[in-house]
């Protein structure tokens, strides 16, 4: 039963025929990951590093399928050169990023990549749309689905720490 905003996003992704869910385990994406693992209609692909997911989604597009990459802001740094594939070849690309290293972050280790997430993504041609509330998150993923799979763009939706809550470690 879809009750949380993450459940609603999962249902929305399925409605838009997203069938490949690629992820590195992350607390912020737990519901989306668990839903993808439990649903036989989709492939749930656990990655060893986020850049694998970038290449996976390019392969999905070559075969006419749609995918989404679920990652943490620190994982964005692992994707940089692989995004050459997306930007260079014009592959559609949808990423949902759970943010660390900004609003209320207590862990100093998270700041360097958290603060670099948007500049890095934008430098590699990925548009960034931030969401601060559950309602914004759902609407923003909906907007991103149109931008990515209708217009062929590369878009990252950032789930901020206002939305997810800041961690104390």
């Amino acid at each position: 039963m879809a009750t949380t905003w993450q459940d609603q996003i999962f249902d929305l992704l399925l409605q838009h025929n997203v069938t490949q869910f690629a992820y590195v385990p992350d607390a912020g994406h737990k519901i989306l990951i668990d839903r993808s693992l439990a649903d036989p209609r989709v492939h749930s692909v656990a990655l060893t590093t986020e850049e694998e997911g970038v290449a996976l989604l390019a392969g999905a597009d070559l075969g006419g399928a749609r995918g989404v990459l679920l990652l943490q802001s620190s994982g964005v740094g692992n994707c940089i050169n692989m995004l050459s594939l997306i930007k260079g070849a014009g592959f559609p690309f949808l990423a949902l990023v759970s943010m660390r290293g900004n609003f209320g972050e207590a862990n100093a280790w998270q700041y360097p990549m958290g603060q670099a997430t948007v500049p890095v993504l934008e430098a590699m041609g990925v548009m960034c749309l931030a969401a601060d509330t559950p309602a914004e998150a759902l609407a923003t993923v909906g907007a991103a689905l149109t931008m990515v799979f209708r217009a062929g763009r590369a878009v990252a939706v950032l789930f901020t720490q206002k939305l997810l809550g800041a961690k104390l470690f």
Partner: protein
Amino acid sequence: MATGSTGKEIGSAVAAQFLLDRREALPALLGRHEDFLIVAGLSGSARDVAALTRNGPHAYILVGAMGAACMVGLGLALARPDRRVLVVTGDGELLMNVGALATIAVMNPANLAIVCVDNGHYGETGYQKSHTSLGTDLAMIASGSGIKLTQTIEQKADIPAGARLIREANATAFVLLRVKPTEPPPDQRILDPVLGRHRFRATLLGE
């Protein structure tokens, strides 16, 4: 300094296992290449595939994004379970993202096979030795990653079994094709990544 002459060994200190000629062994291993959707890695293996397929639209050839080939193949294989997907890559390209082998082993699509053309060298950058000349065994890494069907080809007699594996396996297969560090075929690759994507999709999907 690289030379274009067939059979001329360019790499230094060639190990005893690296004996096959890539220009003969890879076509023999693949057979009717039209039976596959092919993703080719960088450099030598990309030139091998471009020459073999005469740049056919059933091959998506990477010219950058090193380390992508196996995962592009996984995404394609999951998207098209009705087709056999073949990744043809080199030792250097594969070494950049060996974690992908673990990811692929977990998914284990039966329609995916990976052929690593292993010449033990980074050919495109001047034939520096790669780790596979220095003790790393990529077939053992594939096996240790959980890929159950692996084979190493070091002589002509090994090729028929490898050919059956990439065509008939009921799980993801990994074939390490050890070859001499000789020049791949002349470069016929399409270098435009946008054109490569459109051609591949237009042919496969009718778009």
